[in-house]
């Protein structure tokens, strides 16, 4: 067996890649390297839009649409955005078109006591809970929230909540944020909130979803997009609250680098073997 074949065999062993990947993910989390994180112009544009366009007392609707599996990538963005909205004096109505919404919202609430400190439920923020019906529910909420759901996630009648006396339909909101691990949710809000009412939309999406919803941002149907772990980390830096997004960036960098090294080495060996076999053929 030639040297290159031996290298190919070693690289192809899943155990090696899996072990190295495990170390590459865990080690930087246990012992952060602190690699500097640059802020992309796209994330800064989103931050600047909120800073320049939302005034104290403004109203924001936030769609919490992700499962626990996507929490690591989306929750940091949700927390950072919530902090910015509260810092700006905005009031937030959270809702969820996915059944896992109430649980991930409660996890977010438990993980950000500093953000919600001093904020009164019902006055500064409200959580509607899970609303079934997908796009039909989004359409119905856009027309009238109180006409769609009667009580919030905790069983409080919406008429008794001061914030819900200020808002009811899509036109009452200055911004709608969709934090979603699915592609369809963004389509729902573009079709049911932006197209008929022109309510500005902001997307927070998984890296893997971002390419498919990019056309909406390009067509100005959304004011911008926070993409994946990196976008969340950048936003945490911008709002000045270091969280899970920044903490995971080192792990993401090292694991990505490891995969790139494996891909490059794999190709070097592949081409080395091809050239060697051709050379052998000529002899």
């Amino acid at each position, binding site marked *: 067996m030639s040297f290159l074949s031996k290298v190919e065999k070693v690289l192809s062993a899943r155990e090696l890649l899996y072990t190295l*990947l495990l170390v590459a993910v865990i080690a930087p989390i246990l012992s952060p390297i602190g690699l500097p994180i640059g802020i992309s112009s796209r994330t800064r544009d989103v931050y600047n839009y909120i800073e320049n366009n939302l005034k104290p007392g403004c109203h924001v609707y936030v769609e919490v649409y992700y499962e626990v599996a996507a929490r690591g990538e989306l929750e940091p963005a949700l927390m950072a955005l919530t902090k910015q909205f509260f810092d700006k004096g905005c009031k937030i109505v959270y809702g969820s078109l996915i059944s896992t919404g109430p*649980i991930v919202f409660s996890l977010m609430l438990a993980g950000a006591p500093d953000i919600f400190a001093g904020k009164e439920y019902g006055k500064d923020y409200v959580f509607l809970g899970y609303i079934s019906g*997908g796009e039909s529910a989004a359409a119905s909420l856009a027309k009238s929230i109180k006409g769609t759901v009667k009580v919030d996630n905790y069983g409080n009648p919406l008429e008794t909540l001061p914030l819900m006396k200020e808002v009811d339909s899509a036109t009452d909101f200055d911004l709608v944020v969709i934090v979603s691990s699915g592609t369809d949710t963004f389509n729902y809000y573009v079709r049911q909130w932006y197209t008929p009412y022109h309510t500005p939309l902001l997307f927070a999406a998984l890296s893997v979803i971002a390419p498919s919803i990019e056309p909406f941002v390009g067509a100005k149907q959304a004011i911008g997009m926070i*993409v994946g772990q990196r976008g969340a980390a950048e936003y945490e830096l911008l709002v000045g609250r270091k969280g899970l997004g920044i903490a995971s960036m080192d792990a993401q*960098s090292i694991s*990505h680098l490891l995969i790139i090294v494996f*891909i490059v080495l794999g190709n070097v060996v592949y081409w080395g073997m091809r050239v060697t076999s051709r050379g052998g053929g000529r002899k």
Partner: protein
Amino acid sequence: MVVRRVLPQFIVSLVIILMLIFYFFYINDDVAKTFSADDKALSDWAVIISSFALIVGGVDIFRFHLTQLRRGGLKQAPFSVVTLIAELTMVVFGAYGLALSYLNPALGITITTQPQFRWLYTYVYAPSDSAMYSILVFYIASASYRAFRVRNPMALLLLIVAIIVMLGNTSLGALIWPGFLPLRDWIMTIPNTAAFRPITIGAGLGVIILGLRMLVWREVSWMGRRE
């Protein structure tokens, strides 16, 4: 024939026509208000029906696994038993929470805030869900290593773009070359959008055609029929 085929198709056609009228037609403000209210009523029906569909789904899973227990043999039995126990447990605690929200609203307990339901979700479902998703990293890494072989110029282009986007997504990329981040953004906003926009438009046109086919009774697959 009439009940199983004609009536459902008639209802679907009627709903499509009504939705089109409510959404697109404007006569005057009063009519528009009425249309808007009717449109909302139809959307609300969909919300209510989908809520009941969830119950049907739950019952169906239960029935399916009961059947599996009877016919599936020993190999399938453990999985079906776990599913049935898990479903029953969550339903019992959820129903208890729902009952409390009506019987004693002062407690502020609902389905999702019922302590046992919440505990099971947070400490059983959530870690399992996260673990399943996390395992993907190993498969993706392994698949990337095998798939990104430069066998032709197109594969080389794909590899270069993949590496730029990967490095652009990391903080390490900027240390290697500051241009990775703007280059990633350019790839995402220009070539990527150019590729995805036709797909999005195509899907939109597909939905319109599907709606038209349903309107004229040509589309029957939603009734479980082939033609």
